[in-house]
């Protein structure tokens, strides 16, 4: 089953004031999909491919498996579009389906693959400082402050090799940090949308995002030194 009874977005609170608002489908992507606009669909799969692949690879072992999950997600979207009520944004709905697909595929994978090849760095450390304590003096002030990156040429920051470093750093994150970093910083969701998609608290979302970004920063600092 792709859809559990739990939807990946919150219900309207029962104390909601005033009449129930039925959100009109004003999202241009949604309008275009409903009118079966081929160019709009092509643009949509292009725009979300990177974030969807990154997210799927949080759950699945390789690119091929992640691509299969992305494909199944789009097929499911088409098949169930007429049931989409617009209670969340189209984008949240699509990524919610991807989460369901990827998680369910991982459950199947985990039955055939050796345990150690999955679940690497599963939980992740959510405590402790994100900066090496040896970089601060007894007074808590920097003793080894970070370099300014303002003298790193932009061409270097934006080159392919730096991009690969960043992708590798994201993939090394503990999975719970990785999924939050991908949804926030790669897919561009707001904090409360991420909390709803992953069913986690604001506090959890913030801790995981902070730790994830701090790890990527550290990798970059070593690389750009």
């Amino acid at each position: 089953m792709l859809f559990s009874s739990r939807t990946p977005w919150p219900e309207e609170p029962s104390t909601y004031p005033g009449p129930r608002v039925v959100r009109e489908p004003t999202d241009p992507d949604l309008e275009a999909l409903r009118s079966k606009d081929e160019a709009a669909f092509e643009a949509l799969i292009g725009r979300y491919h990177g974030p969807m692949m990154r997210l799927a690879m949080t759950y699945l072992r390789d690119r091929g498996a992640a691509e299969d999950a992305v494909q199944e997600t789009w097929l499911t979207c088409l098949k169930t579009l007429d049931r989409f009520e617009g209670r969340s944004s189209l984008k949240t709905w699509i990524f919610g389906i991807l989460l369901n697909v990827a998680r369910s595929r991982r459950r199947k994978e985990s039955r055939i693959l050796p345990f150690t090849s999955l679940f690497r760095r599963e939980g992740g450390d959510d405590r402790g400082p994100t900066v090496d304590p040896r970089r601060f003096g007894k007074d808590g002030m920097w003793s080894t402050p970070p370099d300014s990156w303002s003298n790193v040429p932009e061409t270097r920051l934006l080159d392919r090799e730096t991009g690969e470093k960043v992708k590798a750093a994201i993939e090394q994150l503990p999975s719970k940090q990785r999924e939050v970093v991908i949804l926030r910083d790669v897919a561009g969701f707001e904090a409360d949308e991420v909390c709803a998609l992953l069913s986690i608290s604001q506090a959890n979302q913030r801790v995981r995002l902070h730790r994830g970004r701090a790890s990527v920063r550290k990798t970059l600092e070593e690389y750009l030194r």
Partner: protein
Amino acid sequence: MTCREVVELMTDYLDGFLSPADRARFEDHIHGCDGCRAYLAQLRTARSLIGRAADEPVPEPLKAELMNAFRSWKSS
């Protein structure tokens, strides 16, 4: 506030989750501290470089399959 504390508040600062009082203390510190300003700039850079991981073209075979699926969905 010490630098050690300030670095742990940076994501909350960027997301606007600090209380007005904490935000003011945070900004006071940052204005007088080159190290924390550099660190904050690095975090911002890291965030925008992470965002670039979104740029990935759909492989042609997958695109072809999806467009075929779209066309048969369209005509159904």
